[in-house]
């Protein structure tokens, strides 16, 4: 979803999300901090298409937004976050570590014009995101790493090693550790076999 966004910011909902008309819902937000890209300043209305992410009044959130021009002077801000990808924050800001990781990821996904996305840099940033304080960001990072792992070339041995050892560091998420280590094992088994990515599914009689 980051690739589809024009910007990323921290904002506070000024009122709860409400359905609006046939095709969308709206949430008034107050921008608090730009993380990356092009973002609204001060107050703005975030539009969403169904299914809707519901934000409560006075809720702080990390938003991924796209700008849609309406006439010469007016911009409409659209959420690019699919259902379930709301990133609600415990406070009005993110930590410096989170800020740095998100900007690294943003830069990898939004290269300079003419350049390709930097997959290696994205993988490195996603690995770092597995230790961020926001659980939702850790979960999204895991899912994105799993997607990248469909092509093992995206994840070099150093990253695989870290995945295999995940859970051993104080900043690691103990709940997610089995899934992360499992991802590492899958990558290792593919590497050992020296095969192209195998079919990720298989059958066995119970």
């Amino acid at each position, binding site marked *: *979803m*980051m*690739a*589809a966004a024009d910007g990323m910011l921290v904002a506070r909902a000024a009122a709860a999300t409400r*359905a609006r*008309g*046939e*095709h969308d819902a709206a949430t008034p937000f107050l921008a608090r901090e730009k993380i990356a890209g092009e973002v609204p300043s001060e107050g703005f209305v975030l539009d969403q*298409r*169904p*299914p*809707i*992410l*519901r934000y*409560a009044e006075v809720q702080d959130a990390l938003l991924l937004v796209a700008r849609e021009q309406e006439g010469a002077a007016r911009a409409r801000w659209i959420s690019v976050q*699919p*259902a*379930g*990808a*709301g990133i*609600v924050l415990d406070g009005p800001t993110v930590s410096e570590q989170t800020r740095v990781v998100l900007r690294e990821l943003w830069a990898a*996904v939004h290269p300079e014009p003419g350049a390709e*996305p930097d*997959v290696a840099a*994205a993988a490195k940033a*996603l690995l770092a995101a597995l230790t961020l304080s926001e*659980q*939702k960001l850790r*979960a999204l990072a*895991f*899912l*994105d790493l*799993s*997607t*990248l792992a*469909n092509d093992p070339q995206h994840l070099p041995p150093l990253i695989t090693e870290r995945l295999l050892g995940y859970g051993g560091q104080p900043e690691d998420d103990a*709940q*997610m*550790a*089995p*899934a992360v280590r*499992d*991802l590492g*094992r*899958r990558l290792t*088994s593919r590497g050992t076999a020296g095969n192209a990515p195998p*079919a*990720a*599914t*298989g*059958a*066995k*009689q*119970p």
Partner: protein
Amino acid sequence: MESNEIRAVLVLVTFATLLVSGCSDSSSSSSTTLRVGVAAVPITPCGANAAWDGPVTASGVWGESYADANGNGRYDVGETFTDDARNEALDAQSKGKYDGIYMAGFGADRIALGCHDDIWARTIVVDDGTTRLAITSVDLVGTLKYGSYYGFAHAEAMVDPALGVTNFIHASTHNHQGPDALGLWGTDTVVDGKFPLYLAFIDRQVASAISAAVGALEPVREVRGFRTDPDESPDLRGLQVRTGCRPPFIFDSELRALSFTGANGTIATLLNWGTHPESLESENELITSDFPHYIRDEVERQVGGTAVYLSADLGAAEIVGDTCVGGADARNADGSNEFDSRDGIGFPRTERIGRMVGDIAARGLLAAPTIEAASLDVRTASKRLAASNATFELARSLGILDLDAQVYDPALCPGGTGLCGLFEQTAVTVADGDGKPQVQIITIPGEIFPELYLGVAEHRRTDCPAADTGRPAEPSIRDAMEAPFRLVFGLSPDELGYIVPGYDYYPANIFDEQRDPCDGQEYDPSYPRRRVPTHYHEVLSIGVEAASYVTCTAVELFQGSAALAGQPACEALP
């Protein structure tokens, strides 16, 4: 696949032993040796219920008590609550988590503020003298058979073996206005939304429904069957839409209904239709069974008996007014569709839809010919599929999916990693005295796209050759069934997510999130509103091979393993 995995029970009961004496009174030529019982037990999480032993909030909705600091009538994160230790005893992760009725479907944190109409566990038991089949439908978004502390297997274990039930079929209607029974809709998508005490209650109620239905068994005098046109039903046209207008814009539009009549009139009806029960959409905060409530009510009003509704092949098939609106489809001769808008969403509109569908089924049944039903043939298959969608593994890891550790042991799947899913399917054939199939049923453990039931070779996208992944077409389930009445029970027993045809399956990617090669393009000049959307369904699909597994298994159950020869999608399976 090995045919010895299929267990078959085929019993032809002689008419002389069980023939109901009153049958000859009927003016029809129908004869049946069946007995049928039915029961409806509420699972509504509101108010008083002698079977409920958990806490009730001030609003009357079941849930842990809390201090409503902001006075908005619902629990909000940060408010203090009384953590009921009985929930923790069932699910250790419940400790410190608010347990209440989070509504399933759409976004997170949609907590119920009341109950509009009952949601149910409804069971019909069919018995031919040797086989006793219990079919249960619950008004839930979906659930699991083998949960760690809940699920249909737990309910089955509560049924007295002396009742003699030989086979169970369980299914969820996919109701998007019922409690979360999977865990995906808590305060956030990474927070379990299940209420352990309530899920244990559901298991007890399911067991009660099965037991009561067995206790109510009575001889059947007459079985009637009705179905609308399988490919185009004018009465139902425009009520089904594709999610986001996803092509191909086709449906299994067949509405199927069976009625079982005894000495005192209609005992039960069985209703089967394929579209998402989510007509009340995401803003509703009252528990309800959505339009199936009104379908059942209308059929019961006109035909009598107790109606049991089961959702069919509803993958990507949504009720009108959902995401593909504003001229996406016509309903009337002038091209209009009174439901093709989100403006009127609410209970009156839901009632109109439900009663209209119920009326079609009821009138059809009352005018339908009888079916000769002499024997039951029940076949089951179990296969394993390692999930390739990391979302499922993450949900298991976080304790959102509470899976039975032994049943879902990763070691049982090749590679020994990831979530190892168990696919169970059941095929039922009701045959006449000559053994000729009259009614057939297939169960599907998820939300299968209709083109997989109808046959991908004939029902597929033609708008965008570039989007074809090259995976072979899965075989048609419908074509493998021989009976005139063919029913599909979706989300049975499990909700393992969307089952998407392989040729159109696009897994998620951080740089290209399920974008279609023809994203945004129009694909039907008659309906400019229909444009190719991004691929949403794969986000909640256990894996691309799921389609081959369920279609090939269905074909094998009905036709035998020889029928898989020459089917590339089946031969490619491990």
